[in-house]
Each structure stands twice: as structure tokens, then as C-alpha cells.
């Protein structure tokens, strides 16, 4: 198994001292007889020596003192913007802690997990061994810990059943200890969220699902399998060997994937090769400005599970609080324009300062100023005023998110720019967003009046 190619792939882990003793010995033995790998190791060591040298540089104390004085003087001469308005953040925290927002977050996370699973791939025999249980399981159970942005982390017990049904039992600690059950049937395009304590149900319906993508895009495990098989057919699709570590006293080996802005790692028992932990991370430049991590562990395959656990019909005795329509088609430029229009309508013609989830804090300020929700209200789902607010807010949230998703789905080569921070909808000729569609030499430019035109690179704003 330890061919030249395999050894060559783990040389970085070797110089970073992250291999097991056995692997280290095998690499050393190979280096003694392979000049190509041995030269590569020399180069890697020279690079690390260079960075070590850089790490030893320190700024003189006098230089530091003078820099401090300079910045304080400059700042004194520069007018700062308005003072921090604590109440805005207070309101945002209140909203973010509300159950409905968490429901929306879970949907987004579920989509993120799907996107992440697209990226599974690998060509080394050990990786193929590790992903085999995922490829052939009929059911699976797992524990999941989710952390998104500054929202308190939550844990969930997850179940999967073919063909494409998932059930999550989620526990929140804030604003009060609470349990929530989420069932998603991607084949039916329907989801159900249950709050057992309040006997409350929220229904979600996926619309505009692309025919061909019903199985691959909305079925987590099926999609994983399709993507793994596709990757295995492509020898150039590589995964990163992460070496060994210990999880709960078990020796595990890991493989990582970072491509197309997706980061994932999979750790498997070094003896049985069964997946022990799957980690998925999304950074602020990948998932619309919200950083987060999902860790799946305690993974067990082919457990007998009752079909009733996966029913998406509202159970007897529950009240349907809200039905959310989720557009599952690929977001387009029109969605971005619609999001900008909605934003401008809500904020007296202004646009968001950034096009990511962080901008939702701004939206909260706008809604507060419109008097839709006063601070401290609204943690009870049965309050009619809160229900009305959250219905409006959730739909706005979903639509604006969809527009932002278009931006973040653009490839790096699209060279997109956003310049709407200081514009208003009345600045007719002002370009606020531009990008280069794939294969085009011209840019698409969205102006502040939300009209669109095409422009050559030299005609773009500086």
C-alpha cells in the first residue's frame, strides 16, 4: 500500500511531525532509496526553517511606543462614527435566540451539510475503505454538535433512513432548555419541526426542486454516495491525509478535503476503518459571513429504525404555527436584485453594508426602528404579535438570504464586487454590484436603481 505515490502524499505530514511511529519509519526507509521524495523533504524543511526564522522577529519597544502615539494622534484628528448602540445588539441577540430563527438556521445548516457532502472524494485505498460504510448503509444514527456564528451551540441526535429522510432531535440550552424535533423528507420535499413542550409544529415545503437533482441535492446520504463514487472515478481528485490522533481513547486516522471553498474531515477507527467522526466547517468567506462548525460523531450504520419516526405529517394534538416555503432552485441574479429591493424598501432606500449573514444585524435594526418588535418581547411562540413578526421576519430572512447566496455561489473568477454601502436607491447611475459571468468577457453591473447593464472591464468603477 505504501507506494511512492502514497509516501509522496504524506511527506507534508512527515515534516510537520504528524505521522505515527510506524508511518514515520516507513517514510524514512523510502527516503533512503528515493531521491525525488528526499529532495521534496529538503524543500519542505527549508520552507519551515524560513518561517521559523520569520517567527523570531520582534519589534523594538521604542518603535512600538511611537506607533501607539501616532495612531492615537491620527485617531484624534479623525472623526469616529456614531457611538455603539447597545440596544441594537440586545435586540439581535433576542431575535437570534428565538426558536424560529434557530429553525431557519437549521435549514441553512442542513443545506450546508449537503453542499459539504458533495465534496467527498478520494483516490487512496485507505480513504476508499473509510467511506465504504457510508456508501452501503441503509440507515444510520449519529450525534451532532452545531456552532454557527455567535449563537449558542446546540446538540442533536440524528437518524437517516433510505431514501433520503433525516430526523434530528435538537436540544437548546438558551433562552431556556428546550427540545425540538426536525424531520426532513427530501423526496417529498417536506419538512416538519416539532416543539413537544408547546405542542407546536412548523411545516416547511421545498418548491422549485430541479427534477434531476431531487436525489443528489436533497438527500444527504444518497448525495454523499454519488459524490464519493464520482470522485473515486477521477484519480486526480485528491484528499489530504491528516495522520493519526486519538478520539475518546480510540486511535483514528483522518482524511481532509478542502476544495471549492468547502472544508471537511473524516476520521475513522484505525483498526476497523469505520467512520468515527465527520467534521464540517464553514468560514465567513464561504457561508455568507457566518462561521460555523458541525461535528458528527457516535456514528452507527444499519440500525433498525421505525418508519413512524420519519413521518412528516403534523401529529395529533399539535398546532401548526407557521408554514415556510423554501425555494430550492439555484439562486440567480434576479434573487440578488429582489433581496436588494426588499432591503431598500425596509430601510428607506439604503442598501446593506455587506452582502452576508452579518448584515442581518442591520436588518434587525431596521425592523426595530419600524417598531415591529420592541426589545425584550417575543420569546413565546404562542404570542400572536410575536407570531406575526416572526412570520414576516422569517420570510424576509429567507428571501434576502437567497439573494446573498447567489453572491456567495459565484466562483472566484467572477471577480464580484459590492459597492452599495453608501448608495441609496436614488443614486441612479451608481454601480453597486458587478461580476463576470462564466465564459463572458463583459461584466454584469447592477446599479442603485436596480437596473442591470453589461460593461467592459475598463468601464467599471475604480
Amino acid at each position, binding site marked *: 500500500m505504501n507506494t511512492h505515490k502514497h509516501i509522496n502524499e504524506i511527506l507534508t505530514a512527515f515534516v510537520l511531525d504528524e505521522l505515527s511511529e510506524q508511518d514515520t519509519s516507513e517514510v524514512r526507509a523510502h527516503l533512503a532509496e528515493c531521491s525525488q521524495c528526499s529532495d*521534496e523533504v529538503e*524543500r519542505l524543511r527549508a520552507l519551515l526553517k524560513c518561517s521559523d526564522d520569520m517567527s523570531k522577529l520582534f519589534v523594538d519597544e521604542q518603535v512600538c511606543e511611537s506607533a501607539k502615539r501616532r495612531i492615537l494622534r491620527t485617531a484624534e484628528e479623525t472623526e469616529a462614527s456614531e457611538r455603539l448602540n447597545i440596544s441594537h445588539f440586545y435586540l439581535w441577540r433576542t431575535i437570534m435566540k428565538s426558536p424560529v430563527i434557530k429553525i431557519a438556521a437549521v435549514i441553512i445548516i442542513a443545506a450546508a451539510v449537503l453542499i459539504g457532502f458533495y465534496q467527498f472524494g478520494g483516490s487512496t485505498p485507505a480513504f476508499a475503505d473509510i467511506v465504504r460504510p457510508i456508501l452501503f448503509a441503509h440507515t444510520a444514527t449519529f450525534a451532532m454538535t452545531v456552532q454557527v456564528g455567535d449563537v449558542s451551540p446546540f446538540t442533536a441526535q440524528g437518524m437517516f433512513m433510505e431514501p433520503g429522510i433525516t430526523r434530528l432531535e435538537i436540544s437548546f440550552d438558551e433562552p431556556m432548555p428546550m427540545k425540538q424535533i426536525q424531520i426532513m423528507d427530501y423526496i417529498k420535499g417536506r419538512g416538519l419541526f416539532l416543539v413537544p413542550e408547546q405542542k407546536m409544529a412548523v411545516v416547511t415545503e421545498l418548491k422549485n426542486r430541479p427534477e434531476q437533482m431531487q436525489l443528489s441535492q436533497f438527500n444527504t446520504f444518497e448525495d454523499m454516495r454519488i459524490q464519493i463514487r464520482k470522485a473515486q472515478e477521477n484519480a486526480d481528485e485528491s484528499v489530504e491525509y*491528516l495522520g493519526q490522533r486519538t478520539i475518546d481513547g480510540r486511535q483514528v486516522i483522518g482524511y481532509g478535503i478542502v476544495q471549492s471553498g468547502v*472544508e471537511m474531515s473524516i476520521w475513522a477507527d484505525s483498526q476497523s476503518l469505520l467512520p468515527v467522526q465527520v*467534521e464540517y466547517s464553514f468560514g465567513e468567506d464561504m457561508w455568507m459571513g457566518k462561521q460555523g462548525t458541525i461535528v458528527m460523531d457516535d456514528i452507527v450504520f444499519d440500525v433498525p429504525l421505525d418508519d413512524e419516526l420519519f413521518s412528516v405529517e403534523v401529529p395529533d394534538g399539535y398546532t401548526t404555527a407557521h408554514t415556510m416555503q423554501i425555494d430550492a432552485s439555484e439562486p440567480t441574479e434576479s434573487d440578488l436584485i429582489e433581496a436588494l429591493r426588499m432591503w431598500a424598501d425596509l430601510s428607506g432606500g439604503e442598501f446593506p453594508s455587506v452582502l452576508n449573514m452579518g448584515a442581518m444585524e442591520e436588518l434587525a435594526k431596521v425592523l426595530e426602528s419600524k417598531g415591529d418588535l420592541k426589545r425584550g418581547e417575543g420569546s413565546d411562540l404562542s404570542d400572536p404579535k410575536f407570531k406575526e413578526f416572526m412570520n414576516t421576519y422569517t420570510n424576509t430572512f429567507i428571501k434576502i438570504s437567497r439573494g446573498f447566496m447567489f453572491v456567495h455561489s459565484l466562483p472566484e473568477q467572477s471577480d464580484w464586487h459590492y459597492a452599495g454601502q453608501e448608495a441609496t436607491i436614488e443614486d441612479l447611475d451608481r454601480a453597486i454590484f458587478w461580476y463576470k459571468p462564466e465564459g463572458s468577457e463583459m461584466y454584469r453591473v447592477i446599479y442603485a436603481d436596480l437596473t442591470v447593464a453589461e460593461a467592459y472591464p475598463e468601464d467599471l468603477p475604480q
Partner: protein
Amino acid sequence: MILDKRFEELVEQYSSQVLNTALRVLGNSELANDVHQEVFLSIWQRWHKFNGKLNWSAYLYKVTVRKAIDLAKHSRRSLPPELELEHPIINQEPDAAMRKEQLQQQLAQCLAKLPKRQADAFVLSRIEGLAYEKIAEMLGCSESTVRVHLHRATKNLTQLLRNYLD
């Protein structure tokens, strides 16, 4: 105008961190000073937007690394053309100190060619010497992901700097 006391405290507490990080990436104290000014001035201009809960150390590490790399990318003027990647010195034998300096300058510029998170992971781990756990917290990802970024960055930099490392 009167400065906010909290801003003064911020400058007092973190100036040395910002300057040292910038110096280590750029290898030039004048440029490090520029990064220091830019970092704190941009914070002051958006002072009202900062949440009291912010982990300033982590935030400043990230911002400083990004600004320093960005500056390295645009400061080719400080390098003679023969030192640029496309025209490495092959036939000459510069002395060890000069070679070391050239390699450091090229490394700074090559960081700008990496995906941002790879560059962050490399600088924070190999140049700042931070633990994976802390980097993971800063970048909002798992420690395994930090490892992946670090491995990728190391491989990519070795490729980009091949002519200087041989």
C-alpha cells in the same frame, strides 16, 4: 475630538501584537508600522459597530495577517525585478544572509497567492506559533480543518518557491 478611553486601551494592549505579526510577515518595520496604522484606524472609523463581546486578540491577528499579506502583494516595488518569482536568480550565488532575506520576501508575496484561509493557517501556525486549537477558534473551523489548510499551504508554498528552496 476626544478619544474613547476603550479605544486607547485597545491600542495600548494590542499594538505590540499587531506590529510583531506584521513585521514577521513583511520583514520590514516600516511596512509593519503602516499595517499597524491601517488596522487601528479602520477600527476607529467603525468603532460603533464593534460588539463588546469581540475577542480582540483573535480579531486583530486575523485582520493584521490579511492586511500584511495584502501589503506584501502590492509592495513589489521594494523588490528588484530579478527577485520576483518569474525571474529567480539561478546563476548567481548570493551569500546566505541575502538568500535568507530573499526567501522571506518571496514567502510573504507567495502567501498572497494562496487561498485566504490557507495563508491564515500558515502564518498563524508557523510564523505566529499559535496552537491549532486557538487557530481553529479564530478561523471558526475545526482543528482538523486547520491541519488541512496548513498541509495545503505548506505544499503550495513549496511548489511556488521551488526555485528558491532548491
